[in-house]
């Protein structure tokens, strides 16, 4: 019996690789297993190698595994590109159609199963993916009935016959594999899962759901990988709430339209990845100086420019903190799990309205697209707080005076009203302005307004600015990361503890303003610190050094080849330090 399994299906893009993985994963998720799926794909529609690696476990997993138990291959390229991940008892299940060849330097076994031929005999070669699922089930000794419900959901609208055919294909794959390889097949029986029903979703789903729960009723966005899922989800769900999504002509329109909607009084969102964020930069400054709340999601991908559009990277960090000319108050938060992506996105709308500034919800491709089992979300934790918004009961202002929308206050936050509200008329401008919004270049006013804006976020309240798993007062090592590296660091930490090292873990969730006070004690008390991040220059490490100090004990561990860290990489790098 095994408590963890790593399975990968690969082939040409457009061959149904994604749905094969999807059906396999959903069915196992419903049995109560914890799943983690990560897709390798290219920026094209048809052709090119693609694969979907799925990890199945009886306990929660938040990243891809080092190795592979089963590789399902629809072409030789899949074998050649991925066989090295297989451990010695690993199995390759390959379509007999392409005469699969086993590389010489592997101890894993290859079984050719006529996926295409069986599917064609049953009616259509399209069902070769189902045959592959059946073959996998044979290796796992899994009752194929577990797939029926999912198959029915996916193909049900095409009629009972299609459902039956697909189930037949799974069965045929199962039977063929069992019969032909009986006795030879390694036993990979998974321990029984707890049978609990949990969600299976990508980070972008959680972000979009968080936006809905957080009161977002309007989104303006431009399609871009890996952020588009957010707009696609919300366009389906917002109409039931009276809201909508507008696909704009460009990223600048998306950001300025969200600003307009937010100024108009509705909770509005825009989402993109690096190239889009570059274009939104001027508008972010507008939100900063006009103090219009704005929530932006940045799902980081490989940069610069078009970079690696379908690959993992965390290189927007500095840009998200600093981008836009001039100086503005800004909040940058970085959820490190799918659950946090939900809560943090909902909370971002509160922060934007309370502090009246842009809030960037930073994600990365691995978090946004990694599909995983998620513990139940506690809806009661979601609050709606609108800060100093005033929509009625304003006193009349004599002599057509304007409402002091930018009133100098102790906390820097001024009362805010929205168009339509009587006695609330004021001016809004990206030009430096006085308390009523009228342009003013006077030096004294400039200083007063700059200070007012910047002090708004000095004492920001954010629940858990640093996720800490810090059991040791005198740790040998503190591992620091942000966003999706949470999972890989957790696994490396477990292995390091087994090695006898005392390890603490800090995942930075409030990126800006930086939670120095939260992190400082952990850095101070650790003998060594390693900052793990998917970029080339060690941006987070630099930010930690800048804010916390202790540069001499901080090691950078960076990876920027487009792939997420694997647990063994982090583990061995950390061990090297001792």
């Amino acid at each position, binding site marked *: 019996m095994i408590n963890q399994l790593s399975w990968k299906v690969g082939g040409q893009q457009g061959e149904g690789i994604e749905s094969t993985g999807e059906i396999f994963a959903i069915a196992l998720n419903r049995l109560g297993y914890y799943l983690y799926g990560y897709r390798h794909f290219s920026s094209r529609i048809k052709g090119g190698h693609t694969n979907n690696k799925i990890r199945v476990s009886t306990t929660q997993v938040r990243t891809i595994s080092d190795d592979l138990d089963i590789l399902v291959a629809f072409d030789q390229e899949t074998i050649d590109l991925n066989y090295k991940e297989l451990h010695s008892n690993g199995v390759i299940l390959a379509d007999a159609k392409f005469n699969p060849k086993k590389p010489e330097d592997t101890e894993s076994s290859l079984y050719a199963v006529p996926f295409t031929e069986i599917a064609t005999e049953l009616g259509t070669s399209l069902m070769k993916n189902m045959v592959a699922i059946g073959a996998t089930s044979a290796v796992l000794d899994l009752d194929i009935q577990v797939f029926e419900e999912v198959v029915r959901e996916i193909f049900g609208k095409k009629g009972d016959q299609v459902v039956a055919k697909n189930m037949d294909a799974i069965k045929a794959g199962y039977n063929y594999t069992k019969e032909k390889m009986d006795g030879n097949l390694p036993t990979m029986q998974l321990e029984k899962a707890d049978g609990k029903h949990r969600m299976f979703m990508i980070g972008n789903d959680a972000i979009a759901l968080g936006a809905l729960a957080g009161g977002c009723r309007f989104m303006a966005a431009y399609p871009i990988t890996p952020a588009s899922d957010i707009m696609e989800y919300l366009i389906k769900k917002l109409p*039931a709430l009276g809201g909508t999504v507008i696909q704009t002509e460009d990223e600048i*329109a998306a950001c300025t339209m969200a600003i*307009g909607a937010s100024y108009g009084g509705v909770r509005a969102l825009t989402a993109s990845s690096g190239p889009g964020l570059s274009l939104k930069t001027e508008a972010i400054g507008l939100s900063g100086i006009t103090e219009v709340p704005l929530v932006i999601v940045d799902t980081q991908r490989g940069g610069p420019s078009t970079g690696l559009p379908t690959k993992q990277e965390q290189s927007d960090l500095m840009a998200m903190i600093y981008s836009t000319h001039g100086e503005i108050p800004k909040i940058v938060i970085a959820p490190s799990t799918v659950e946090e992506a939900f809560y943090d996105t909902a909370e971002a709308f509160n922060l934007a309205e309370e502090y009246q500034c842009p809030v960037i919800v930073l994600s990365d491709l691995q978090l946004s697209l990694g599909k995983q089992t998620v513990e139940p979300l506690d809806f009661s934790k979601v609050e709606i707080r609108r800060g100093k918004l005033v929509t009625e009961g304003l006193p009349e202002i004599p002599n057509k005076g304007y409402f002091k929308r930018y009133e100098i206050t102790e906390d820097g936050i001024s009362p805010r009203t929205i*168009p*339509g509200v009587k006695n609330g008329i004021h001016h809004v401008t990206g030009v430096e302005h006085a308390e009523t919004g009228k342009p003013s270049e006077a030096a004294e006013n400039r200083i007063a307004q700059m200070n007012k804006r910047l002090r708004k976020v000095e004492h920001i309240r954010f629940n858990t600015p640093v996720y800490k798993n810090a059991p040791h007062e005198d740790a040998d090592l503190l591992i620091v990361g942000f966003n999706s590296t949470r999972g890989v660091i957790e696994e490396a930490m477990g292995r390091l503890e087994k090695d006898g090292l005392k390890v603490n873990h800090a995942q930075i969730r409030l990126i800006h303003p930086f939670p120095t006070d939260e992190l400082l004690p952990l850095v101070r008390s650790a003998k060594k610190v390693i900052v793990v991040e998917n970029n080339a220059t060690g941006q987070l490490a630099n930010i930690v050094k800048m804010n916390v100090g202790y540069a001499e004990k901080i090691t950078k561990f960076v990876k920027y080849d487009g792939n997420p860290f694997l647990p063994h990489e982090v583990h061995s790098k950390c061990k090297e330090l001792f």
Partner: protein
Amino acid sequence: MATFKDFRNDVKPNWCPGCGDFSVQAAIQRAAANVGLEPEKLAVISGIGCSGRISGYINSYGFHGIHGRSLPIAQGVKMANRDLTVIASGGDGDGYAIGMAHTIHSIRRNIDITYIVMDNQIYGLTKGQTSPRSAVGFKTKSTPMGSIEQAISPMEMALTAGATFVAQSFSTDLKDLVSLIEAGIKHKGFSLINVFSPCVTYNKINTYDWFKENLTKLSDVEGYDPSNREMAMQTLMKHNSLVTGLIYQNVDHPSYQDLVHGYSETPLTESDLNLNQEHFDKLVAEFM
């Protein structure tokens, strides 16, 4: 009920004496009063440039944004609160150079806002460079040998982009301008009003006199029918776009708000921000 005086504030415009924009400001104030608006129900969203300052000179909610982006901001405001009257405004550089994409796509989208462009064929606030509306041969600081690029015809462009309301006016024709703005506000959809608004400081070619000599009023064109798109295009081409009046209006095409699926009939600003637990559970179940 508010009068045009209620739309005045105490800010003195920083426009040059004689600038055409003063009349546009007055026309917006009169039109707003004539259609029965209260100042707090009007939002004027403007771009950057001399004319972009207009949102600060009208007693209403006003938003002076960034260069070229008055339209997306204005559309966002309207989507947030469909009960507001939203006017976007700016200059020809704002609308036809840096913001041209938004102009075309606002036309296509047909959200119910009114866009007033103060067209002076020059960049004024940056002190005299060529604009996409400058004629070939026009000498400016950035085209010392004369402009060699074709001028845009925004009215023809609007017709081809699928506009449902296209009008053009001249800042001195205050009465006509007021009634066109009123018609634009009342139009259910996107209305584009291009106003020749002479720059007395930097444009010595397209002067008040020049416009008086060269403009043709569509009311003087016999048999002109603004519901006929083909006639509109032919007339524009025949007169090199130098016409004033209502060029084209399609009253049958529904606005974006009327077409968008599920969009609240009451302002989105009034919608309940809380999901109920039942709704949330339903959404969550889809991921199980």
